[in-house]
Structures are given as C-alpha cells and as structure tokens.
C-alpha cells in the first residue's frame, strides 16, 4: 500500500483514512519518504515538519478512540512559506525572515489543523511572492517535476511542484497576480484563487493587501474544493473577509464531475487573452478544449475585455505601492535578520539589514512602489491604476452578462527554462497577463490542466467566474476535468515523470 498512496488523489487518500485502510502515520510517512526521495532534485520544500508523524499519530489515536473527525483528518498538506505557522519557520522565501518562527498560526493553517490535516512542511516561493518562477527565492529555485531544467511557475512554485511530484496530495498557495494559477498551469495541477475576501488573509505575510488571496493547490478539482471548504469563510481577524454563507464547494465539484455534460453552460472566450503573446501550442490546446466544451453542450461565445490591455501596467503600480508599505516592517527592530555594527544608529541598522536581507526583485518593487506613492505622483500612478481597476471590473461585468464563466489559457507558454527570463523583469511580468485581471477585479479564478504542449510540458486552462461565484468554477472545473480525463485516460499528472526509477510503472495507475 505504502508504495503508491502518494499517487492517490487527495480525496481518494482521505477516503482510505476514513475507512481505516490507511493510517495517518502511514500516509504521512509515505509522503515524507517521497520528499526525502525526490526533493533533493525538486526543492519544493524549505522546511519539513519534524512533528508531522507525531501529529499524524494523534489523529490516528483520536480516530481509534471513535471520535468523529473531519473527512480530511489525517491527510497530509504542504503549506506555502508565506503563511505563518507556529513551530515552523515562516520566511516568505526571504533572507530577512530566515529562521523566524511566528507565535501564531495563519487562520487558514489553524483551520487545517482544526480539521485534522497534518502539515508536511513549508514550500518554496519567490521572495515575498514576487515572481513567476520561484527563482527569486532566497533559498534557491524549485524545479519543475516535469522537467528539472524548467521553472515550476511562481510565486507558489514550491506548492505546485510538491503536488505535481507527489510529495503532497494537498497544498496551500497564495495568489496576488496568478501565483496559484500560473504554477498550476505549468505543473499540470489544479489551483484556485477564491473570490477576494472568501478566504482569510490573517497570518498570510502580505504582498499586496488588496490583491492577495489564499487558496488550494491540488491534483484534482474536487481536492481543491475540499480544502477550500476547510479554509474558507468569514474570519473576524481579517476585515476584508466576507461575511456570507458559502455553499459546499466539494458538493459542487462532485455534482459537476458526475453530470457528464455542460448543457446550458454559457462559456465566454476572452478575445484579448486568446491571441497576442500566447504560444502556438498553448493556443492549439485551448482551441481543442473549446471544442470539447462545445461537444459537451456548452454554448461558447466570444467576449471582449478591452481594458485588459492596461492590466499589467496597473498591476505593477498597485502591487509595488502596497508592497512598499507592507514590507516596511522588516526593519530588524522586533524580529528577523539584523545587520549591525557597533556605533551605528537605528537608521543605519535598518538600512544595512534591508540591503542585506532583501533580494534584487524585492528592492526593485519597493523602489517602484515608493516612487508611485510619492507626493505629486500619487494621482498619476496609484490613482490612475485604481481607475483601471474599475474599468477592468466593468469589462468583467459586461462579459458575465453574456457568459456564466470565462475561459482563457492560464499562462501564455509552457514552463520556461530556469534563468531564461531572470534578467528580463518585463518579460517575467508579462507572463502574468492572463491571470492578473482576476486579482484586479477580485473575482475567483481556477487553473487546471488542458493537455501537453509541443515540448511535452503541461498547458493550463483558466476559468473565471463573477465575484462570489466560486461554486460555479468548481462545478464547471470538475466537469471539464472529467471530460478531459476521459480523453486522456486519467488526469494529467498521471503522465508526469516519475522522477526516479523506482516507480516507472506508477504512471499507468
């Protein structure tokens, strides 16, 4: 059993835990073994939880004692390092927080614990979630399990790679401009950015407060829904968290997967995200997917969102502006790195610490943001960017009058090579063109696999729904996933390289 439980989808593993066929200790050990086996190559994890087995044992004991547990209790989960965790370092991929162990759990982490999930460890990311390749981590890049010479996407490359490499069945990510959906696209996994305010940000180390949203990273749509059900809902500790009752996303995913068709679903193809800058093979997979949807009864229409042209520019004003303020607290006075010499003033120490502790990309964005907020420039930059945001929201409003969901490629290309765009920040920024509008508008978005590119690497599909309609994405996403799996003979990650000789046959499960 132990040999292949890491290959199971999260909900399949959870079912075995519930039935008692697999213990949490076995499930946890299997994944720890897998991490030990492959993470030297993948480097998805920055920290492995030493207490994981102990926590798994506690869950097994509670289950043995007859306690009624959550349906995911005992299942392992990987946590993006941007989230605060008691007992585990939380560095957000930055040198400036090296070794910092928070005294509190992020709300999403507390809710996972409450449900009995076992944290395997903390996953790698671009420093402070600034990047699209995980190459900006202060602790070295994560590699794409499909091709170790390629990037796993970013900023949440660690979580996506961990899930794609079968090191974890479930993971948490955070998405400010695509940091969940784009890594999902290039690793053949599923990632969900919930409606802004749908999931608490408390304890998520802030990048851009008005854009950040925590969400699940998994191998199946249902698995994401199950995690979303656990972490979502109002949190009094986050003022921007929505006070509303959410339906069961898992129920929506199960219903979507079992329906077998998409009759009556109006699907909008966003013209502006379907042509310019999108690689030919990505376009080809997208067109094939559109045909699959049409064949399944969906009504596909083209919609236009002209303001999307300004989205990257607006995003790269709002994000650095908010980040420059959010990152001001990293000053060595109360926590984290301190670089000092005798006789220095506190200003000297702050400056030296920030100089040594922040990477180049972080400094670049702090400088951009500081400039954009400066007196005399505020209206031209931050103010204008906020207006673009309103325009993008209007574009979405109009589009959603014609369609129930919108679709587009989740990323313009398959995974690029490590180092390929590192010296060209603009090329890196433009990579997020497909995912950024959802963050600017606050709407939910999902990334899921839609096949392989000409290079044999995963290509991702993005689904978008109106504000609050996360349920719609799970229903449609699970249906599309089922239709595609039927064509492929299994979900895409079953085609992922095994990474070691030991499990060559595992791909055929």
């Amino acid at each position: 059993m132990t040999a292949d439980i890491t290959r199971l989808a999260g909900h399949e593993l959870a079912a075995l835990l519930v039935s008692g066929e697999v213990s949490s200790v076995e499930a946890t050990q299997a994944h720890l073994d897998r991490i030990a086996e492959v993470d030297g190559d993948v480097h998805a994890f920055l920290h492995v939880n030493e207490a994981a087995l102990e926590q798994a044992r506690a869950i097994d004991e509670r289950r043995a004692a007859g306690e009624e547990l959550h349906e995911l209790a005992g299942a392992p989960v990987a946590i993006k390092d941007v989230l605060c965790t008691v007992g585990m370092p939380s560095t957000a991929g930055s040198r400036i927080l090296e070794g910092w162990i928070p005294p509190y759990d992020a709300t999403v982490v507390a809710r996972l614990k409450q449900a009995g999930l076992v944290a395997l460890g903390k996953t790698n990311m671009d420093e402070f979630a600034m990047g699209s390749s995980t190459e900006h981590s202060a602790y070295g890049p994560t590699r794409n399990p499909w091709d170790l010479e390629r990037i796993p996407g970013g900023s949440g490359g660690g979580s996506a790679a961990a899930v794609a490499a079968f090191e974890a069945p479930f993971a948490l990510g955070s998405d400010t401009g695509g940091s969940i959906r784009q890594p999902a696209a290039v690793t053949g996994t599923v990632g969900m950015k919930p409606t802004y305010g749908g999931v608490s940000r408390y304890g998520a180390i802030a990048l851009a407060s008005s854009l950040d949203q925590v969400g699940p990273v998994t191998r199946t749509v249902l698995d994401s829904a199950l995690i979303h059900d656990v972490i979502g809902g109002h949190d009094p500790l986050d003022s921007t968290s929505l006070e509303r009752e959410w339906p069961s996303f898992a129920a929506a995913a199960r219903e979507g997967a079992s329906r077998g068709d998409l009759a009556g679903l109006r699907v909008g193809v966003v013209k502006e995200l379907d042509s310019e800058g999108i690689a030919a093979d990505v376009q080809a997979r997208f067109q094939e997917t559109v045909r699959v949807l049409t064949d399944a009864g969906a009504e596909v229409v083209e919609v236009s969102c002209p303001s999307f042209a300004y989205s990257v520019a607006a995003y790269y004003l709002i994000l650095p502006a908010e980040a420059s303020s959010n990152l001001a607290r990293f000053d060595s006075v109360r926590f984290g790195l301190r670089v000092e010499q005798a006789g220095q003033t506190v200003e000297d120490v702050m400056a030296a610490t920030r100089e040594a502790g922040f990477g180049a990309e972080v400094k670049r964005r702090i400088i951009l943001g500081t400039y954009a907020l400066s007196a005399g420039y505020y209206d031209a930059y931050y103010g204008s960017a906020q207006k673009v945001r309103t325009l993008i929201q209007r574009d979405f409003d109009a589009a959603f009058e014609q369609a129930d969901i919108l679709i587009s490629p989740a990323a313009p290309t398959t995974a690029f090579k490590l180092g390929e765009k590192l010296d060209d920040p603009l090329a890196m920024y433009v990579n997020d063109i497909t995912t950024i509008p959802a963050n600017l508008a606050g709407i939910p978005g999902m990334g899921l696999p839609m096949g392989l590119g000409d290079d044999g690497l995963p290509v991702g599909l993005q689904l978008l729904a109106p504000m609050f309609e996360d349920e719609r994405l799970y229903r449609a996403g699970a249906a599309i996933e089922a239709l595609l799996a039927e064509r492929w003979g299994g979900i895409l990650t079953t085609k992922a390289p095994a990474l070691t000789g030991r499990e060559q046959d595992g791909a055929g499960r």
Partner: protein
Amino acid sequence: MDFDEALERFEPVLGFEVHVELGTRTKMFSAAPNPAHPDFHDAEPNTLVDPLSLGLPGSLPVVNAEAVRYSISLGLALGCEIAQSCRFARKNYFYPDTPKNYQISQYDEPIAFEGAVEIELADGRQVSIPIERAHMEEDAGKLTHVGGSTGRIQGAEYSLVDYNRAGVPLVEIVTKPIFGAEHDAPEIAKRYVAAIRDIVLSLGISEARMERGNLRCDANVSLRPRGQEALGTRTETKNVNSLRSVERAVRYEIQRQAAILAAGGTIVQETRHWHEDTGATSPGRPKSDADDYRYFPEPDLLPLAPSRELVEELRSQLPEQPVAHRRRLKAEWGFTDLEFQDVVNGDMLHLVEATVVAGATPQAARKWWTGEIARLANEQGVEASSLVEPEHVAQLQALVDEGALTDRLARQVLEGVIAGEGAPAEVVEARGLKVVTDESALVAAVDEALASQPDVLQKIRDGKVQAAGAVIGAVMKAMRGQADAARVREIVLQRAMD
C-alpha cells in the same frame, strides 16, 4: 521681546492639534489591552502587546467599534458633522516606535469635520474656536533614550522601546487657524485645551490626564505684521504636558518669534520642544509641508460608514456643553461668584465635581482643592490633579465628618496620600493618626492636666471658663493632637466642676 510690545507690532495666529487617547478596553485595531484604560495603567513594558502591536508579519488590523462610537460622540460634542463614509489611510515613515513603519490614520476622509468649541475666558467673555476636523488614528510606542544628559535622542547611548502604547486609539482634533486672539492668546490656548479636556471627561471616553499623556497638545503659533494679509511662518510646539505649559508656551513662542522678526530675521518652520523647567522652547525637527508620508488608502480595512441611526443615538446621549454645564454646577452648588471663579480659574472644576460625585459636599470639596491641595501643588510646582484622586479627597472628608479625624490630622493624612502611602483609611491605619475617642483615656489625661495646674482649675471653678484653654492645650499635647478639641473642652469643664 516684551509680550505687550510683541502684540503691538504683530498679530498672533494660533492653531492646535490635540490628541486624545480613548480609554477603550482594547486597542484601536486589535484585542490587545489598552494602557489608556484604567485597568491597564501600570502594566510592565511590552506586556500589552499582540502580533499587530508588534507589527508581526501577517497580522491585520480590525477596527474597534467602541473607539468608533467614542470618536463619533467626541465629534458631535465638538459640533462637527459626522462623515457618511470615511476611510483609513497609511501614513508611511520609518521610526522604531512605529511597529509597522506606517501609522494607520485618517487622511482625506476624517470621521468628523467642521465644528466649533465655545470657551469662556476668566472675565466671562465667550470665544468660539473653529474646528477643522477630528480623525481617528493609532498611537505609536514609546521610546526611552538612555545615556546622554537630556533624555532626548541626541547624545543617547541607546534607546528602549515599549510597544504597550502602540495601537492605543487616538482622536486628533485639529482647529482651523484662530484669528483675533490678540492679548488673550495664551489664555485662549489654555482654555481651549481645558475645554477639550472637559468635553472628553463629560463624555467619559478618556481619563484626559495630561501628565499621563492621555491628552496631548501641539500648539501652532505664527505672527504676521499688523496690516499684513499673508500668514507668517508657523512653529509647532510639542511636549506641552499641562494647561499651565500650554499658556506659557504660547506666550513664550509669541515673544520669541516677535524678537526674531523685529530684528529682521525669519522664522524657521519646525517642531519645537517645550521645556517645563526653563520655560522655553528649543528647536526640534525641521518640518516642511513637503514631508512625504506617501499616504494611500489602508487596503486592510474597509471604508467606515457610520449609520445615521447610530449617530443620532449618540447625539441624543451627549452630555451638556461645558459652558452650560458650568452654569448648572454653579447654581447647584450655591457657590458665590468669587468662590466659583476661584475654582474655575484654578482649573479645579472637574476635580471638585468628581469629589462631589464621590460623596463630599460641594463646600468641603471646594475647600480642599482650592485650599490645602492648591497650596501643596503650588509649592511643588505641579498640577493639583496629579497630586491626589478626587475619590481620596472625598474619603478624607468623610473621615472628618464622622469625627475620626480632626482638620489638622486630615492634613497629615493628605500628605500621606500624596506620598503614595495609599487611600486615606490606609494612611490613618499606618500612621496611627486616628482621633482618640477612648473616653477613659481622655478623662485620665484631663484629670492629670487639671491636677498639675491647680491655679487654672481654681479659675475655671471661679467661672473664668476661658482659662480652660491652657488645660485643653496640655491634653491635646499629651494626645499628640489626636483628640477632638471640642470634646476635650467638654470633659475639662465637666471634670473641673465635679
């Protein structure tokens, strides 16, 4: 330059920024205990903190609803309009007492704006002070500079930071420029701050103790030559921690600026530091309008839209305005004009009122505050309010009323209370100052005194009752003053006639 001469040549224009710490149980944006609440005054440094107070990564602010209600009440009491919708903003600057390196404040959309406060001068004239805005914000932590001679950052070896105060709810009240103050400028400054203090106290939203920093005043002063339209360059004087200092600082700043301008110099726009001991201000940080705090709307908080129902509910609960309040008290207490003026000018109205509320008669309360306590405060050069709590004064008077203390003993007890020996009853106990009510002890002492002064005894028996004074004196001395002289006199007369 002499004050009158300064006023002859220049017109002073005033402006005030008063910060009021709200006495809510928890902080402005988190559940950490608020040191401005009476239950948490004496906390050790850095014990009233939580992730937000320390600016830990991932922490988020949540608006304290009680602080919002307090702020609306204060805005209403200042005669302000309450915003239909307002929002918070981040004021970005690096300073080690500011845990997030930005302060959450209100910038372009304050909760209250456009009001006025009526104040009454000593001679009864009323002046209206125009209020521009009152906005909510969080306080910073407190730095203590160690080493160096001045206790200021210059020359210090190192500094300690206490984050207890970080996140304490504040309302900053900003006046419009105040014109026409003329010779009354120093008094207007003092009366205005006192009026804010009285409003805050009547609302019960802060203890408003200046010496504790519950109420802090920054005084802006500028001068312009007579006949000139344009405003002069202003200075902002900080660290003005008592009403008396407010008055003195404004007077000082008018004279200082006048001397510079008269000599052809220019005023530097800057913050200045008030020194209570020398009665002078010294230059602090240069401050220009170009200071760039990179304000932007706080993305972690939603706009705040107080419902009109809440605003009207709070309006209906407003206490009377200070001027009306004062008139009512004067009538209720039955003080003469002179007595009442004495209390008001000594800035003791709220103290007398609190003492009356605590159970003392108005006359007794007045006598304590304008008498013995004012004398001691004057002697020590401090505010009367900082010496003793009104409740303790009321308790002291109660002990006198029930005969447990004589006036003389009560003054000794007061000294003990001021010295920090505890409540009056505790001081009485510890110092053994209780009046001797043991009748047999008094009788024995009287008999002994009469026996040792047979000539006096004879005079009393002969009807020269006033001669009893000598015996009473001897008995009081033997009792170390702890006897009721009236009762001793009764006993002396009674025993002498036996």
